[in-house]
């Protein structure tokens, strides 16, 4: 197998003296959708942010496209075709949808802006209708679409997505996950997805990791993980997971 696009090797991250990641190993291959699931406070967001350079790992390495980016600043990493769509959407509420999308393209040189815009509109036609509306007045689902669209405007090779389904209605979640699947299929976009919504995430992803308390405890393909008893017990409470997961997709 060829070298992975992104690999996290023995990363330890601290907040002050408190350790949040206790030696994490994750690899993401080019063209894959990889998901990381885990309970609240497990350290999923911390891993995302560590990959993106803020906070930086105290030990271990982050290798991206063969380069060690452990000590790079976020703005340098963003210029290396990696995009992060942070937890809680974080769109710019006073700016219009259009301006938000422009902000996403700030690391590019502006060429190909139209094409990138069209791509986002094809993916989320809803955004095109709301172009001149302020970001803060969009619905939660639209804001998430905008956040993803904004991240895509920088033309990334790999998209890091932190809990895109947070607080959204199931139908919208489905729509967003379909868009991700479509992006991956048609353009080969690599996606590293953090989710608490394990069922949808594991069905979407090629591979998955389970994080508990700052360490990876389980790994496997999405389907494998869905069948694991410990995953179902911990992250797919009750009915929903069981039946549908067994049915596969």
């Amino acid at each position: 197998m060829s070298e992975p696009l992104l690999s996290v090797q023995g990363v330890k991250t601290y907040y002050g003296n408190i350790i949040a990641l206790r030696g994490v190993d994750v690899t993401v291959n080019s063209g894959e959708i990889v998901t990381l699931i885990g309970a609240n406070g497990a350290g999923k967001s911390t891993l995302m942010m560590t990959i993106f350079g803020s906070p930086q790992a105290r030990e271990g390495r982050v290798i991206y496209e063969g380069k060690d980016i452990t000590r790079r600043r976020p703005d340098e990493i963003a210029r290396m075709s990696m995009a992060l769509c942070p937890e809680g959407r974080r769109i710019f509420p006073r700016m219009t949808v259009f301006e938000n999308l422009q902000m996403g393209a700030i690391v590019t040189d502006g060429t190909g802006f139209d094409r990138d815009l069209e791509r986002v509109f094809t993916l989320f036609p809803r955004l095109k209708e709301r172009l001149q509306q302020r970001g803060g007045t969009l619905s939660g689902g639209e804001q998430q679409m905008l956040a993803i669209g904004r991240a895509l405007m920088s033309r990334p090779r790999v998209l890091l997505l932190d809990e895109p389904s947070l607080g959204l209605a199931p139908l919208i979640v489905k729509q967003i996950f379909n868009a991700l699947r479509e992006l991956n299929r048609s353009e080969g976009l690599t996606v590293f997805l953090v989710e608490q919504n394990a069922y949808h995430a594991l069905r979407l992803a090629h591979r998955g990791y389970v994080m508990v308390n700052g360490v990876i405890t389980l790994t496997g393909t999405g389907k494998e993980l869905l069948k694991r008893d410990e995953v179902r017990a911990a992250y797919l409470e009750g009915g929903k997971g069981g039946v549908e997961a067994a049915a596969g997709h």
Partner: protein
Amino acid sequence: MATDDAVSARTEPSPVVAALRDAAMWGLITLLLTGPVVGLGTVASSGTYGFIQRWPLVFSMTAIAFAVRFILMMTVWRRRGAPAPRKVVADLPKSLDSLRKLFIPVFVLLAFAYPFISVFVAGGMTPGRYWIDLGVLVLTYILLGWGLNIVVGLAGLLDLGYVAFYAVGAYTFALLSMNYDLSFWVCLPIAGIIAAMFGVLLGFPVLRLRGDYLAIVTLAFGEIIRLVLINWREFTGGASGINRIPRPSFFGFEFVPSGPTSFAQFFGITHSPVHRLIFFYYVTLLLAFVVLIITIRLRRLPIGRAWEALREDEIACRSLGISVVNTKLTAFSLGAMFGGFAGTVFAARQGYISPQDFTFLTSALVLAIVVLGGLGSNLGVVFSAAVLVGGVEMLRNLGFLKQIFGNDFDPTTYRMLIFGVLMVVIMVWRPRGLISSRSPSVFLTERKTVSAAMVHEGRG
């Protein structure tokens, strides 16, 4: 509108009664407030204190409050039943752009014609002097307001020590021109650059601070600069400041009655000290335009948008690859540079400066101008500087009020009171400032063609 009327009709007995009731409340509040404050005054006479009573004044104020409120209720606020509910800005106001297009040429024209209008209306050079001087003062505050607007309005970094850069600019010019005989035009950019360096100096330690903490550190910074100016006597002249700062000349022509380099003699006009002031007005105006153009241009570049984005969400900025450090430092240094320009103008206009001119009060006034104008709005700064600086200054000559309120009514003593009331009224009336909507800006090269097409589709 119809539904609004129906609602108010159902809940209120009748608009007139409601308005009367509301106005009566206002009258009562005015009475209660002005009663002790205005109605009673102490006078020291031959070693003892005596009271004077000004009840007619209190009652006239009450009556005015009642009448104004009633008229407003019956006219402006009529249709909405009660004081206007806060508007939620859901979309970009489309009318604003056309309004702006109309306003700006009028403004520019007015600004250029202002000295002549003042001279003409006041009826002569000497009486016009006061008005031109006031114009220069307002322009100086507009410069300061535009500078602080970048830091507070766009980048969202609350700076309570902005006066420091004003002081640095003023002292740089004063010291350079006194000690090295450099001319105003040479000093101006140097003062701007040195002020910008002080901006970076302030910026570095506060990079990680936000909100309250940032405000306190910047406040301290302003005070430190002032204290240094007071105590470093050999260099800055201490508390008594610097006197006889050379005045700028008009391309080498000086504003003196006669002599080979006399402005008046060369142009064959009778000398007037107001010429210098008029020249000064245009210098400041020119500077203001330069600053405005720089600001507008920068807002169209990625850095300008990054400032705004920084105010909205720092984490999002980081994830989009914006360097938070660079963004903050450029905002601080550019804002400081404009403050330095304003300081230079101030020192050159006054001819003397002292640390007294650079107290926290100035920072507060500039901040008030920015907030009242509407954070981030350049036009708003113009309005609020005119109101807060020009308007309050004009309260000095409201002598005619004596005719209304009696002879012992001295309007100047109420200046700060009126100033305060004005601020409260503006903030209640327009909680987000006079001009609260921000106009979207453009910065990507391909955007022009795209936007036109997209906007249409978006609206359609």
